[in-house]
């Protein structure tokens, strides 16, 4: 009976975490390049009361074991890397990756992080940076007399210099892809870090080697589906509720057992 209480409590804890994940998805519904997660669950240990395959007298064997499970636990947060909605912004420094691939940025500690957030900015020297000021890798600097910045689908960055009618190439945006993007660690600030599970980044120019092309003047919104998240939240709440009922029932059973002696 006490076990039933703990078992149901494990279900409540798991559903609580489910709501946490849903809440984070909903909070990031308007975050550029955000990828939604979903929590996955699994059952835990089973206590064997009677094992299968033992003799039940004579030559007959018990065909089925008698065992009771200890509840459930969250097993993984699956991040879905499908492309989010497209938002036209008209800003020449906004780029959208139209499929597989990540931009690379240099963190202050010297390591490289990966992002889908293509809302680029220029710093005082004209270097392309993210909204947090992290420098895009490979580094691209826009000359201060440039007028018209155009980013091609294959990642070439061209500018028009005052007094020159031919566009001039100032850099090439490179993308990284991973065999297992779901294995990346989310660092917050729209950044991901590589892990042993994601594999090493495979670098290349947009449009080659399985990497997607770029689209200037657009941003990728999150891939959160509000309706779906609402349904998940309702289901999680009900599952939480019914597990609380199992705790209550077990408690009442314990109370009855305690009151056997009047």
């Amino acid at each position, binding site marked *: 009976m006490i076990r039933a209480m703990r078992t149901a409590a494990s*279900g409540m804890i798991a559903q609580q975490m489910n709501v946490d994940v849903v809440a984070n998805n909903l909070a990031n519904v308007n975050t550029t390049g955000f990828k939604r997660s979903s929590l*996955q669950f699994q059952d835990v240990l089973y206590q064997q009361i009677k094992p*299968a395959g033992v003799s039940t007298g004579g030559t007959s064997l018990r065909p089925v074991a008698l065992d009771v499970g200890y509840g459930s636990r969250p097993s993984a947060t699956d991040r879905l890397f499908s492309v989010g909605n497209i938002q036209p912004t008209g800003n020449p420094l906004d780029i959208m990756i139209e499929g597989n691939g990540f931009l690379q940025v240099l963190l202050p500690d010297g390591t490289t992080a990966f992002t889908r957030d293509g809302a680029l900015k220029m710093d005082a020297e004209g270097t392309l940076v993210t909204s947090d000021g992290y420098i895009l890798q490979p580094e691209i600097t826009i000359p201060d007399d440039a007028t018209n910045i155009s980013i091609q689908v294959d990642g070439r960055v061209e500018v028009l210099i005052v007094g020159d009618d031919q566009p001039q190439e100032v850099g090439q945006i490179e993308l990284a892809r991973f065999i297992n993007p779901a294995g990346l660690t989310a660092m917050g600030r729209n950044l991901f870090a590589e892990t042993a599970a994601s594999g090493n980044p495979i670098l290349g120019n947009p449009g080659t080697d*399985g990497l997607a092309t770029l689209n200037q003047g657009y941003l990728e919104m999150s891939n959160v589906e509000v309706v779906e998240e609402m349904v998940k939240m309702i289901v999680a709440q009900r599952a939480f509720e019914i597990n609380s009922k199992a705790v209550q029932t*077990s408690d009442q059973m314990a109370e009855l057992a305690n009151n056997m002696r009047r």
Partner: protein
Amino acid sequence: MVARAKQQDAIANNLANAETAGFKRESIFMRRLEAAQTDASQPWFIPLQQEKYTDFTQGPLDITGNPFHQAIDGPGFFVVEAPEGERYTRSGNFTLNEEGQLVTSDGYPVLGDSGPIVLTSDNFVVGERGEVSENGVERGRLRVVSFTTPQTLTPLGRNLFTTTEEAQPDAQSLVRQGYIERANFDLVQQMVEMMTIFRYFETAQKAVQIQDASLDRAVNQVGRIQR
């Protein structure tokens, strides 16, 4: 009362797994031992034997749109290579590892006809018969197996089952990509079962109390010496 408490444990486990992919409902039921029924010398002593039944019926399929999510429509199981050997699962929330192998959330490779399935991206299609192809290139076929007596399957936790029985290739089951199979029980039914168990438990408790009351009378009133 002890037996009812066990049943309550089983229900609590079902409810805790309400959102576990591919979870199969279990129930514990009781039957009289046949020896006791025929032994007339001990009519008051009827031991109960507890048995477990796992309901392997199909759970509802939920669309997730994630290409790594596979659900089985039919009686089959996926085969995964756990550290302790081949194990079976209905929970198809797979992912890739750093080598590009299709694995479960615990990192156990999902087996195809010729070993683990190796992919290079999330741009792949799984056919109804488990054929995996990526950009038109065959990447193997997911093994789907079934068992003549599924009741012999023992749950191990981590959504895995094991059995002593030989697994047979299953031709009936269809693999659905982008779907997840939900737990196969009905909350209402589990709730009703829980209420019933509670009342049986209560009845048993009353029976013990009544027994206690008559013993009390026998000891303290029948045997009282009147002055």
